[in-house]
């Protein structure tokens, strides 16, 4: 298949999945009605369904694609299939930023901004510490300092939960930490797509350069690439994608780990194929999770819980299958 057809087909797949989600479940509307509503000429039911569920769909697609794209990038970059956006402490850092803003009584826009700042600070702390500790393998020192940053941010999150006012703030904080696609308005979700799309464009552009970086900095430099600069660009782009997802949807795990693994089984390791397919699978997975979250009665289940409940066993199966094949 021609390589430029991939993104088109994948976009189509996600669009169809989103349409299916809209057409089923509570407030399900006929696809024809839905298209009419998109054009501004639909029935009242279709308009209502669109208004209520479009923000969730946008949030789910963006979160799934961004986390999966960032996960695939980190996995290629560190040539380590067991890393995810949490690797650099970015998810926890963004979570801590948002928690602090919630405790301060900020509105949702400020919470999102704080999540960005927290994620970027965590990534910065990780990168600076790794640069200071650069003896031996730089990939290893980055993973280790990321672990430390993540642990610090998690401790901060625990403290935030203890300090939170138990009746007004704690439920909001807890709910946000468990992940949700229903917090953002359509405008907020669409706005958060901008940094995610910027990060994704950079990661997709990197393509073969990511493959060269996966050989290690020494090999990449020997091939004539500015390895340090490119690695920094890649980490920054993946961090931007992760922060955008956390800002909108809270802390949703497993997608960044699971989607690249599934994609790798289908198209192999080459970044120019692996990253776009990971993003597609991530978006589709998030849509399924979103559909499931409202499928069990009136109370909405937190998507972070569902992502773990579905994603963790799915990852285990994939991991065992992959290990057995390569053994």
């Amino acid at each position, binding site marked *: 298949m021609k390589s430029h057809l991939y993104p088109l087909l994948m976009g189509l797949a996600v669009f169809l999945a989103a349409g299916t989600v809209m057409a089923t479940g509570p407030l399900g509307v006929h696809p024809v009605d839905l298209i009419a509503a998109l054009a501004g000429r639909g029935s009242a039911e279709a308009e209502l369904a669109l208004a209520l569920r479009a923000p969730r769909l946008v949030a789910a697609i963006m979160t799934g694609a961004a986390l999966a794209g960032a996960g695939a990038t980190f996995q290629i970059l560190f*040539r380590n299939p067991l890393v995810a956006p949490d690797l650099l402490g970015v998810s926890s850092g963004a979570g801590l930023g948002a928690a602090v803003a919630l405790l301060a009584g900020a509105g949702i826009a400020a919470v999102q901004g704080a999540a960005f700042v927290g994620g970027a600070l965590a990534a910065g702390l990780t990168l600076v510490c790794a640069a200071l500790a650069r003896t031996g393998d730089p990939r290893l020192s980055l993973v280790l300092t990321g672990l430390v940053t993540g642990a610090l941010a998690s401790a901060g999150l625990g403290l935030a939960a203890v300090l939170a006012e138990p009746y007004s703030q704690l439920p909001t904080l807890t709910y946000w930490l468990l992940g949700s696609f229903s917090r953002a308005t359509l405008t907020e979700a669409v706005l958060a797509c901008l940094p995610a799309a910027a990060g994704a464009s950079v990661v997709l552009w990197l393509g073969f350069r990511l*493959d060269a970086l996966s*050989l290690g900095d*020494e090999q990449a430099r*020997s091939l004539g*690439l500015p390895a340090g600069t490119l690695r920094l660009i890649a980490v920054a782009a993946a961090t931007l994608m992760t922060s955008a997802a956390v800002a909108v949807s809270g802390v949703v795990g497993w997608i960044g780990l699971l989607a690249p693994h599934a994609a790798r089984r289908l198209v192999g390791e*080459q970044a120019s194929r692996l990253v776009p397919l990971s993003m597609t699978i991530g978006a589709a997975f998030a849509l399924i999770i979103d559909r499931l979250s409202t499928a069990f009665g009136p109370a909405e289940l937190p998507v972070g819980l569902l992502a773990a409940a579905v994603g963790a066993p799915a990852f285990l199966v994939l991991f065992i299958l992959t290990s057995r094949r390569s053994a």
Partner: protein
Amino acid sequence: MSRLVSRDLIAGRKGFALNPLDLDLPGGSVVALIGPNGVGKTTLLKTLAGLLPPLAGTIQAGSCAYLPPPGTVGAGFTALHLVALGRAGRRVWSTGLAKADIEDARSALDRLGIINLADRPFDRLSSGQQQLVLIARLFVQDAPVCLLDEPLALLDPAHAVAVENATRQLAAEGRVVIASTHDLDFAARVDSVLTLDRDGAITAQTGPLTPETLAALFGVPVSICACCGRPICGG
């Protein structure tokens, strides 16, 4: 014709330095670098390749490609893509690799007789096959100076012969090729030899390697086989 020139070059790392080195190697020949383990052969090659900063002195060369010993490069993608990455340095800020890069990668594999490996994942190849694929990448990268770190280590005789021939082809096109090695037969066959001894002294050998030189270099008695003329260490 390429050329590798160094003036008063001191290669080393923290707490360890080799003697100053004046080199002037013309392209077109294979140079073997021999010496005991741990004297700094890899440090010297990486310094010449620009991967380690020299402690002093200068190096004049075009771009240098460095190949680590067999079995140390890992990649999950195909051999063909790995070979095409030889062009990465010329496409740093472009949108992607060009079609011509893929075609050149294919013909480099074909030329070394391993086109059948093109679509296999690199990690699934034997270390001998991997080494040939990496040498195919050197042709695609087309660096005027190729520095090979123990290119024959771990290889079976058939792959060792194939890699040695490929190394000669690299040189025959005018490149400077330096290969560190512990294979004294290989060192005896190539065009010239550099020795690196325990005191950090780098010497260009003139004439064939004598038992005395080898004995002093490695610290073991060396004799010459009466029937084939090969050096026998420890005998």
